[in-house]
Structures are given as structure tokens and as C-alpha cells.
């Protein structure tokens, strides 16, 4: 008990300054296989932090260690101010978890699932009902509160799980591939939910994904591959690190345009079918470039490096051609089980 109190005191004393997650040299080996290879990072309070990487990169293993479901082989991780190794129970009380696979009882109603969770996570009796109403509202499922989960679609079930993860007011919500196997519209809804949680509940969000476009929503991204973090920064900085923005144009007279643009101070190259200018900010540069070209411009293509380019740059591969593990197969297996 004194241990726990000491832990609480530590959190209380440093609530505003200490990171939500702090990881040093975290390693997990399964026999000869090193799933996570000495990673270091920390997540600030209230941050949306994403682990981006292909299947089998070590994302889920890391999340399991942070949630105390797997013991680190070596290294240390503090979550919500508690050590995952020595104070697992405190860690679990302060985190919300949404797993890759569904973990609802579909013979119970949404409300019953939530009530079960509230009791298991020690939500004080008097707060259970108001908290259930609150989280159902957060994911916009209030009107389906009394329905059996078996009548829910896959996307609704996932959003109910997010609501459940928030029920006991966790400091950090862990989401392991929250949108895998869902249609784009549902994925967008889930992202709206996540943003709302962050703004209205001030919770720190830690998620994993192998969808590049989704990682963009995060404030900071750690790109993980073969168990190592190979890059960690904001999406903009990561993108900037792999090259500059470009504006490609086709004109009626490329020769004249090249001379005019170079005279105007642009770095321009002749490329297939036209010219490419390297700029700091493609959006802002389009207008001036068209104006500076001095000849009629037929087409303009502005491009900013994407996270795909970032991943390719750091790993030399596209994210979807990984490790022989087929993503579509997994999605199919999941769909089959849900139906």
C-alpha cells in the first residue's frame, strides 16, 4: 500500500511536467526473435502519439509492454508515472485499452458491457451511470445504449470499445490499430471521436497504425521497423526531412520558362514533360511560379512529401510490401469473424 501511495504522490507532484509515457531501452525478445530492440521515447501529456510501421514491426509488442500485458526483456517504461514492471496494477487503473480484436460481449447491451467494465475498473458506484452516459455521448452512440452489441456494426462496436476505454477516466488511452478492417467513412468517424476525446477529456492518446494517411492526425509519429524506432517527430518535420516540396509545371515554352524562373531565383530542373521547381512550401509557391514563368502554363502539379515517402526514405521499402505478412488477408479474417 505504501508503494502505491508513493507512486500516486509521484504522479500528483509532477502531474503537469512528467511525460505520460517514458520509455528507455525497452526490449522484448521471444527466443531468438527480437520483437522490440531497445527503443527510447516519451509521450507528453495530452499528446496524440502514433506508432507507425508495417505488421510485425513491433508496434503491438510495444503496446503490450506499456499496458503490462507483456514483460519487457530489458529496459524500463513508465506509464502515467508508474513502472510497468513493478506497479502493473496501478498502470492498468490509469490507462484505457482498445485492442486490435473485438473484446465485447455481444449478448449484453452496450450499457451492460460498460457497466461490467466500470465495476472491473473500480469506477465509484455513484459515478457509473453518469460516466456511461458521458462516454456514449462522446462516441455519439447514446441512442443505441440499450441495444444488444450483437446488433452493432463493426464500426459501431469499435467506437463502443473506445467509449469503454474512456469509461474509467484514464490518463492515457491506448489504441492498437483502431481502424483496421473498417471502411473509410467509419475510419473518419473514429478519428472524429479520438479528436473529441483529446479536446474534451484531455486524455493522452497512444495509437498504432499501418495506415500512412491516419498517422497524419497524430501530433508526433514514431516510425518503427524491425523493432527499432527509425524516425520520430511531427509529421511536418518528418516529411521535410526527406526532401522539399515540389511544383511541377508544363508550359507552352519550357525553355523560356526555365530561364525566367531561374532568373526569379527558383531552383528548377528540367524533368520528364516539363519543369520541376524545388520550394519550401508548395501551396504558397504555386501562384508566384505560374506568374514568374512568363509564358502560358498548361498544367501545375504541386507535391509535398507524404509519410509514404518518409517511410520509403528510412526503410527503402513501401509500407505495404512487408515481411511477407499480408494485410488484406488479416482484414478478411477479421471481417469473417465479425459477420
Amino acid at each position: 500500500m505504501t508503494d502505491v501511495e508513493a507512486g500516486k504522490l509521484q504522479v500528483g507532484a509532477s502531474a503537469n511536467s512528467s511525460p505520460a509515457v517514458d520509455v528507455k531501452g525497452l526490449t522484448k525478445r521471444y527466443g531468438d526473435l527480437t520483437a522490440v530492440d531497445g527503443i527510447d521515447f516519451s509521450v507528453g501529456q495530452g499528446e496524440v502519439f502514433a506508432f507507425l510501421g508495417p505488421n510485425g514491426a513491433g508496434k503491438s509488442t510495444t503496446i503490450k509492454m506499456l499496458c503490462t500485458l507483456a514483460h519487457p526483456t530489458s529496459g524500463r517504461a513508465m506509464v502515467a508515472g508508474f513502472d510497468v514492471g513493478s506497479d502493473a496494477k496501478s498502470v492498468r487503473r490509469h490507462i484505457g485499452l482498445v485492442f486490435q480484436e473485438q473484446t465485447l460481449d455481444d449478448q449484453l447491451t452496450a450499457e451492460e458491457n460498460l457497466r461490467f467494465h466500470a465495476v472491473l475498473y473500480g469506477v465509484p458506484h455513484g459515478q457509473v451511470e453518469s460516466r456511461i452516459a458521458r462516454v456514449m455521448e462522446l462516441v455519439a452512440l447514446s441512442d443505441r445504449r440499450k441495444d444488444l452489441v450483437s446488433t452493432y456494426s463493426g464500426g459501431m462496436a469499435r467506437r463502443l470499445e473506445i467509449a469503454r476505454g474512456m469509461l474509467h477516466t484514464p490518463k492515457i488511452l491506448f489504441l492498437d490499430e483502431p481502424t483496421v478492417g473498417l471502411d473509410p467513412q467509419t475510419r473518419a468517424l473514429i478519428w472524429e471521436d479520438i479528436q473529441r476525446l483529446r479536446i474534451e477529456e484531455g486524455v493522452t492518446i497512444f495509437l498504432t497504425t499501418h495506415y500512412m494517411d491516419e498517422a497524419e492526425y497524430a501530433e508526433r509519429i514514431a516510425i518503427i521497423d524491425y523493432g527499432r524506432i527509425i524516425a520520430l517527430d511531427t509529421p511536418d518535420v518528418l516529411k521535410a526531412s526527406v526532401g522539399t516540396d515540389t511544383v511541377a509545371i508544363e508550359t507552352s515554352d519550357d525553355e523560356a520558362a526555365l530561364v525566367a524562373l531561374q532568373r526569379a531565383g527558383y531552383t528548377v530542373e528540367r524533368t520528364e514533360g516539363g519543369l520541376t521547381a524545388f520550394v519550401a512550401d508548395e501551396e504558397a509557391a504555386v501562384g508566384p511560379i505560374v506568374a514568374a514563368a512568363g509564358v502560358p502554363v498548361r498544367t501545375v502539379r504541386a507535391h509535398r512529401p507524404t509519410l509514404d515517402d518518409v517511410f520509403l526514405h528510412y526503410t527503402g521499402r513501401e509500407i505495404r510490401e512487408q515481411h511477407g505478412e499480408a494485410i488484406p488477408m488479416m482484414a478478411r479474417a477479421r471481417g469473417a469473424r465479425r459477420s
Partner: protein
Amino acid sequence: MTTLSTTGSTAPTPAGPAATPAVDPGTVISDEIRVVGMVWERELIRYVRTRTRIVSGLIQPVLFLFVLGYGMSGLVGTTGGFNFRQFVYPGVVAMSVVMTAMFSALSIVWDREFGFLREMLVAPVSRVSLVLGKTAGGATVAAVQGTIMLVLAPLVGIHLTPVLVVQMICLELLMAVAMTTFGVFVASRIQKMESFQVVMQMLLMPMLFLSGALFPLNGLPGWLTVITRLNPLTYAIAPFRQVVFAAQDMSPAARARFPTNVTLFGYTLPIGMELAIVVVFALVFFVLAFRGLSKTE
């Protein structure tokens, strides 16, 4: 969560709504009791909601009672006004209790398959509470199922008295607790849903057939005697039949024709000893069930 802040300059807020649960031993215990209650409640909700399960849980015992009962009555005959249906009745009630308890416990295999087991296992609660709740739930459901079977008693000529009903329910609960802990242990070892049917066929049916539920355990060949005496269910069903028969008006000839006692090395076990064996069995499997679940994840 900020009430322990060292600054302490904020206005006194009466116990912040987002306060983390206080950690004192009293709260921990009452929290764990709430968990046991919740797991128990879930079992009941699921039981009530699956009417097909209630009905199918009745059909098999009813088949045994009437079809086997009438079929065998011709062969066994009537002794002092007592027939095979009356003999088999307590065994059939026990069978329905055992099957319901086992089925309830084995629903953990479903919970694993559909992920809900994980939701329970990662919660910051003691696994003892989870097993206790599951056991209490399975036992309640099984005892209810067994009690529904009591309405059939008059149809086969078994007289119920209030005391007998209370005795039967108590024994049903004990039997159900023992079988649920056993079932939870078995379920904790089953990783695949396909194995479930196999377990039901290879474990539960032999246990029921070799327990004395359907025939007297006296005068069996040696090998069969050994197996029935090794079967823990034998010691749960014998006392059940003993209390039922004790309340019946039976001639000495009928009692001799339909014996209820279990002998071990020529020694007749008293009812207390039989019950003690069941209690020990339940405790052993409670511990094993707890260990089995702890190994998961």
C-alpha cells in the same frame, strides 16, 4: 488526481470527479466483491437471455427420465411399489445440474474466442474474484435449472417435502460449484472452440454415465467399480439420491433393490464423507482454475 499536488494553492475541490479510486484495503475488498457480483450478474443475464439453452438443458434430462425411465421399468420391474423411474429421478436432476454448470463454465472458451476473456483478464482486479464470480454464476444457473426439474417429481411418483426441497437445492449448489470450478479449469486449458465438443463428449458424458446417476453402483464388475469410485461425480450424486430416498415411503425390499450408498473397500461411506470429498474436489479445482486462468496472457 491533482489533489496531491505540492503547490496546494488551488481552491479546495471536494473530491474531484476524475479522482482515481482510493487505495485502502477496505476499498480494495469491496471493489473485489463488486467484481464477483458483476461477473455473477453477467452469467445470469446471459442465462436468462438464451432461452434455447434453458430449453435444451431440459430436453436431455427429460428424455432420460421418461424414455429411459419407462423403457427400463419393464426390465427392472417394480419392487414394493417402487420403480426405475423413481430410482433414476435424482440422477437425472443431478445430470441437468452438472450439465448446466459445465456448460456455463465452458462458456469461457467462447469468451476467449470472442475476446471478452481478455477484457476480464486485463482489468486491474484479482483473478480470484473472476473465478469466484464465474463459479457463483455457474452454480446459481445450474441450481436454478435443477430446481426447475423439481416440477417433474410428482409425474414420476417422487414426494417432495419442504425440507427435501431445501436439501436438494443445497446439494445442487454444492454439486454445481464443484462442476463449475472443474469446468473453468478445463476451459482454461482449451484454446480452440473446436475442442469444446470433444471435451463435452469425452469428459462430461463418461463422467455422467459412470457416476451412478443412471444405475446403482453395487454389483458392478471390478473394473467398472474402480472407475466409478474414481469419478468425483459419484460422491456428489449419491448423497443427492440418499436425501431424496430418505423422504420417500419405501419398503425395506425396495431399499435393498435400489441401493443408494457408495462402498469403498467394503466400507460404506457416510453422507458427510461423501460431501467432504465433493468439497475437497471443488477446492482443488478452484485453485487449478485460478492457476489456469493466470497462465493466460
